């Protein structure tokens, strides 16, 4: 009997059910082989399971950090008739996780397309918000867009602190509702008891795994974005992006503290914490997202899922825009275009914040949850079933 038939069936049946049937078929082959157990956490986690159901597959998919070492080590990879390709099938499953967090009105209308066309959604939202921000400026006269206002280099010359805070809080609240709902749904589906989500030991280890991107080491050599070429590039670029993002966040918090606790008003000195961390963070975001965009464009297509790559690209373009406009805001703060640049940057920040729950922005949250689950399983030394 040949197993080529299920592959054929799956290729001709693009429903979610067919996807999970195919993922289960491939993972069962992996579970009876187990050669890849040295690469990452996915395979030991698979070995803790004898029978796979949908929740197991979702968990394994989100635990996968997409290093692709297993694909190139697999004697059953295409063109073998078993057609085993874990990175691609798990990416496809992850896409269903991300999609399931979209609001019902988007989800019902084949949201993959919406998400895949994210650059369009992103830039039109940016555009809309930028218009609104500029309208707010009109209070200072429309010409203020291209003139310096006092105090020079302070955003509050254009838009009040209260407005920025209010808008940011409203958008964050909106996103938080969806992210929280997503986290709860995901945890219920893959693990069960919410109480498990509050165990400090596994969390500490999960945070360490996440912060070091241990599972992107692919055993030893790093990620295989191409056959016969493994490197740490992808992991390092991820450090740049994620720690860059974190530094930008630090800059914002530091600015708030200086303002509210020490009554130091912007513009902050060049050697102040908000400026240094903002500049470093923005630089990391730009370099990291450019590097990852380049990696995506040269990667081997067989190892991944097309729509997922589209999501990745959109996400990276958003991060790049975030970094570029952030750095531009800093650089241009004493020039006549500061008002204009600031409006664009605020629009980008708010757009990212608003779209985060429905795009690749949230991937790190599910990866982290999967790592918590993985460390819970290891801590309990418990077979899942």
């Amino acid at each position, binding site marked *: 009997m040949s197993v080529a038939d299920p592959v054929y069936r799956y290729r001709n049946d693009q429903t979610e059910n067919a996807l999970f049937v195919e993922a289960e078929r491939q993972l069962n082959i992996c579970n*009876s082989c187990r050669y890849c157990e040295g690469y990452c956490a996915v395979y030991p986690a698979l070995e803790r399971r004898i029978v796979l159901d949908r929740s197991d597959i979702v968990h394994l998919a989100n635990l996968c950090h997409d290093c692709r070492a297993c694909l190139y080590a697999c*004697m059953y990879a295409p063109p073998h008739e078993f057609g085993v390709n874990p990175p691609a099938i798990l990416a496809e499953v992850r896409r269903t996780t991300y999609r399931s967090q979209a609001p019902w009105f988007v989800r019902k209308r084949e949201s993959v397309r919406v998400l895949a066309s994210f650059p369009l959604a992103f830039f039109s939202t940016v555009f809309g918000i930028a218009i609104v921000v500029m309208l707010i400026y009109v209070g200072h006269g429309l010409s203020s867009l291209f003139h310096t206002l006092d105090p020079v280099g302070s955003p509050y010359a254009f838009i009040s602190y209260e407005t920025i805070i209010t808008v940011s809080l409203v958008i964050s609240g909106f996103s938080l509702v969806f992210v929280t709902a997503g986290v709860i749904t995901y945890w219920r589906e893959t693990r069960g008891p919410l109480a498990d989500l509050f165990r400090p030991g596994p969390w500490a280890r999960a945070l360490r795994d996440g912060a070091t991107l241990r599972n992107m080491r692919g055993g030893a050599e790093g990620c295989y974005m191409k056959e016969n070429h493994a490197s740490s590039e992808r992991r390092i670029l991820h450090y740049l992006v994620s720690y860059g993002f974190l530094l930008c966040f630090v800059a914002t918090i530091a600015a708030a503290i200086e303002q509210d606790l020490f009554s130091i008003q912007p513009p902050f000195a060049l050697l102040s914490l908000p400026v240094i961390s903002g500049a470093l963070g923005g630089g990391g975001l730009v370099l990291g997202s450019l590097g990852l965009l380049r990696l995506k464009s040269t990667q081997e297509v067989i190892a991944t899922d097309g729509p997922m790559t589209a999501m990745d690209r959109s996400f990276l373009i958003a991060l790049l825009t975030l970094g570029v406009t952030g750095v531009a805001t800093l650089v241009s703060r004493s020039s006549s275009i500061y008002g204009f640049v600031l409006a664009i940057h605020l629009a980008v920040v708010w757009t990212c914040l608003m779209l985060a729950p429905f795009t690749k922005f949230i991937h790190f949250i599910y990866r982290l949850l999967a790592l918590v689950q993985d460390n819970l399983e290891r801590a309990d030394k418990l077979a899942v079933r």
Partner: protein
Amino acid sequence: MGISRRYYTIRHRSLTRPFPPLRSNRTIDTGEMVVLPGESETITKLSGNTDLSGEFDVVVIGGGNAALVAAMSARHYVKRVLVLERAPYEVRGGNTRHTRNVRCVHQQIDAYNTGSYLYEELWDDLCNIGSGPSNEKLAELTVRESESVPGWMSEHGVLWQPPLSGTLHLGRTNRFFLGGGKALLNSYYRTLSAMSINVSYGSSVEGFIEQGDSVTHLLVDIDGKRCQIDARAVVCASGGFEANFEWLARYWGDSAYNYLIRGPVYNDGTVLSLLYDLGAEPAGQERGFHAVAIDARSPRFDGGIATRIDAIPFSVVLNCHGERFYDEGEDLWPKRYAVWGTNIALQDNQIAYAIWDSKVVREFLPPMYGPSSSMTLAGIADSIGLDPDRLERTISEYNTAIVPGVAFDPTRLDGAHTSGLTPEKSNWAQPIDQPPYYAIAMRPGITFTYMGVKIDSNAKVQREDGSCFANVFAAGEIMSGNILSSGYLAGFGLTIGSVWGRIAGREAARYVSG
């Protein structure tokens, strides 16, 4: 010039052609396209940028572990080394694709071995399988040389992993390479490239041209195009003949057609038969092979590890008549898994059925296609097509024959046995009484054949008249019959390939350098 012409019609075999013809059936055709030395046609279709013209110092036939080790070993001494891999790039590497670890002597515990494994112990293990080593001198050399193999592998790009799990419990004796055999091959091929060793894929050796006691030229079919390659020395590391059913049927009769081959379709023994034609002396038993029990639904070729069934020690195994026929609990699985290929090969219809219950499902790797299951034994009999009454009777006889009071322990010989059966089950005997019940049909999965060519301690191929070829060497499965007679020791195929690949490559290069 004393050239004995051996030209044959080149037949390009593809993966879709499951039964390659026996060489003896081929038309000998000296009239067609005779390529003489000095008249080599210009080769255009090359793998990579390999220039196949001019004389190579060492030509290695094969693309698996033994071949690559031989090529690297030779390249340390000579400049122009060529690897002729019959398979296309995507499925390069022969049976090595399906390997996972290597069994070597080691004195120390380290990150990759959980304990020491000394010369005497490996030697004893080797003597305790089947009828022991075929040639004690060569087997001793293999065991002795194995100690330096892991270090050599590391130096040539191989990465290792700690033994994490699996049911074979080989972490002390065997060293696991990270990601398994294909990852090992990828590392080696990258090293080959770094060492400027030429590799030609889709290159099938179809004939040798002999001059005196040397092979000077090879007739090679490269992706359907025939050409001639000039060699100063040749290493044959092209594997056994397990993928050639007609050849197997010579020794096993028609039952061979019910065997499944765990490795690629390319191992049909072409090079081995060419060597026999040149008078090479056979080594090893005709029916010697490494075979295990695999899922009867596996593909005819290349199913590899995932199709193996490890349920046997915790099951009852029945033949097609619903009878038990061999002690399922004879010894620890790593020591006995290899007897089951032959066990099943010797049953009627070359099929057997493992039956277990829900108590033991966690004790072994889950079968890839999944077992059939039922809440009743009759349902199980129905699912595998056995007579329900006969099956129930066998199971109930087995259940009542179990000597009570011995605790089941899957990690050691627990002595939980039956009494009064023929054959008995001597360990891990537990009643099959806790539904759901599970069953799976198994066939012999042939890994590789042992019968090959006789070599001396320099891996030089010997002839039936007692002489040696001057420049023909052999390594890997094609000479494994010098070491293994019957039975198998997990990870030892890689040991043989590595030890003899190293010797063959080195000696071939030494011959060339004078």
